[in-house]
């Protein structure tokens, strides 16, 4: 494995940096306060192909590898973690299709998203979070159709998507082995969107309930075979965790950038606080966490590219980077002190944004279970 980024990866990082500085930075704080969805800027990101990073070129996607995707997602996350979350959630929704779908299904998903639209992965339910096996949404086979019924919650892009990838049970007597994965278009009769969450952080992203009431889909919308759903969902999460971790690293880097600038400018007792060892130690610890999270994240992504087992590494990356984002952003608030705590300055937002990275796509407690499970096999 090469530890250095390629010329292409650096060029793409520069491209996203330019986009982030010009389009996201000027509006992020305002949209965060209002909790609004900057659809025009999302559309620009779609035109750049940022929402279909790993989707194969053959189907119109950007076709970059997993390591490159983490580089792009880190840079996006640096500018706004909510924006990065909504953009990369399209990629998350695409993963079940890429893992288990036929070429026709891949083409269908591409037709619904590549031109510039959102998609959402629907796994979580009010009573099925960490225990994904408790999914109650049903898919009943009737003739050559499936009929879906159930309610999904905390769905990123739930209210704005053209298409959903949905985990539902086709045989509730079999537990996780009865779960199956489906493609469901937003405009199918019976698909509706519930309330939008008023979130603590990542407020530029859209999070809602998605409700299925007697939604009829053709049997050709089943991804893989009946009973494959749990496995598809777990592989999906394994593959997406490096991207979630990358976004956490972006938060860390944003926090560090603010702190380094502030520490050089802010004077107390007649000299910049950057000259104080207490501040230097904090900055160094922030850098240690961030660099370690960054390198491990890219390592986990390189396992995806090498088609090696990735469950443990992906869990470590997601967990370590998520915890790092929380710690580093909290320390950033401490370094900026009163200004850090003020909503007029951007670092308190980083702290609010960071928290979800210890929660979604498997809580960091679940990640530890995954890691220990792999160790004790």
């Amino acid at each position, binding site marked *: 494995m090469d530890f250095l980024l390629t010329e292409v990866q650096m060029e*793409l990082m520069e*491209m996203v940096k*330019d*986009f982030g500085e010009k389009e996201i930075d000027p509006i992020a704080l305002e949209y965060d306060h209002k909790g609004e969805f900057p659809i025009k800027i999302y559309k620009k990101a779609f*035109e*750049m*192909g940022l929402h279909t990073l790993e989707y194969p*070129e053959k189907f119109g996607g*950007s076709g970059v590898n997993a390591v490159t995707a983490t580089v*792009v997602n880190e840079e996006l996350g640096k500018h706004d973690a909510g924006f990065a979350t909504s953009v990369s959630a399209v990629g998350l929704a695409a993963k079940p299709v890429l893992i288990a779908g036929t070429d026709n299904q891949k083409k269908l998903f591409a037709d619904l998203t590549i031109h510039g639209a959102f998609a959402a992965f629907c796994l979580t339910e009010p009573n099925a979070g960490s225990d994904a096996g408790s999914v109650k949404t049903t898919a009943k086979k009737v003739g050559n159709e499936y009929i879906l019924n159930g309610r999904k919650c905390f769905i990123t892009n739930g209210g704005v998507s053209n298409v959903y990838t949905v985990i539902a049970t086709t045989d509730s007597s079999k537990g996780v082995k009865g779960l199956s994965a489906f493609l469901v278009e937003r405009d199918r009769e019976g698909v509706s969107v519930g309330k939008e969450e008023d979130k603590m952080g990542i407020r530029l992203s859209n999070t809602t309930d998605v409700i299925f009431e007697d939604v009829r889909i053709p049997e050709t919308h089943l991804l893989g075979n009946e009973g494959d759903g749990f496995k598809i969902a777990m592989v999906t999460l394994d593959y997406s965790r490096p991207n979630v971790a990358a976004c956490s690293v972006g938060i860390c880097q944003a926090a560090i950038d603010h702190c380094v600038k502030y520490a050089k400018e802010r004077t107390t007792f007649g000299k910049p606080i950057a000259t104080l060892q207490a501040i230097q130690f904090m900055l160094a610890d922030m850098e240690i966490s961030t660099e370690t999270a960054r390198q491990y994240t890219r390592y986990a992504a390189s396992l995806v590219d090498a088609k090696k087992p990735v469950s443990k590494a992906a869990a470590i990356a997601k967990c370590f980077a998520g915890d790092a984002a929380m710690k580093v952003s909290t320390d950033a608030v401490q370094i900026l002190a009163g200004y850090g705590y003020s909503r007029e300055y951007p670092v308190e937002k980083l702290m609010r944004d960071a928290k979800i990275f210890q929660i979604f796509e498997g809580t960091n407690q679940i990640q530890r279970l995954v890691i220990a499970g792999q160790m004790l096999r």
Partner: protein
Amino acid sequence: MESIVCIKQVPDTSEVKIDPVTNTLIRHGVPSIINPFDKNALEAAVQLKEIHGGTVTVLTMGPPQAVEALRECLSLGADKAYLVSDRAFSGADTLATSYTLAAAIRRIGKFDLIFCGKQAIDGDTAQVGPEIAEFLDVPQVTFVSKILVKQDNIQVEKEQDDGYEVIEVELPALLAVVKSINIPRYPSIKSKMAARKVEIETITAEDLDIDNGRLGLGGSATQVKKIFSPKKRSSGTMIQLDNDKEAALELFERILENSVFSM
């Protein structure tokens, strides 16, 4: 529509620093970018191509590293790119530059439109575009803020301080565009990747049918004697009152207070 876009790679700063000893620009550590107005010129050409077909060829005169700027243009919709580069061209003023670029354009071949930005943010002369038009003997419109393609010519809007002129132009022609003409697009991941695969041809003095005495520093009609930063002046004071008469009195008081006139 066959378009040629002339671009310049410039230092990324609106506040160029000057070495007080040598009176030259300090370029060390300043990243290079495509002159922002040239990006508008490229976007205008690409938009015309998207509607009317044809190709967009981008051209720059500069050192070998200017190829990066051309590469970026390729990712923003240009189809072909040429780097005009030779030691003989270095130190050229606007006259020698436009002479060389005009020769390069003749070599590239047939065109309907040449696009330039209204000026470069480093030299701010706004001369190279118009001079190219003169050397090629084609009509030119500067400060273009809108382009409309008609049956056998084009109609453009030329920005003025207090409105705009509508001008019809025969093709081929040269247009120098202003910022308000469009918002340049971002490259996409795919266009970035594709741009890497395009071969960029270098045009040297040997490739051109030109008089070598008119190139570079030696061929320049003007020489820069000194570059300096103007002294910063403090901004003026605006007197704004509801009533004009009161404002005039206030102004009068201030004039007296500051002894503008000896009385």
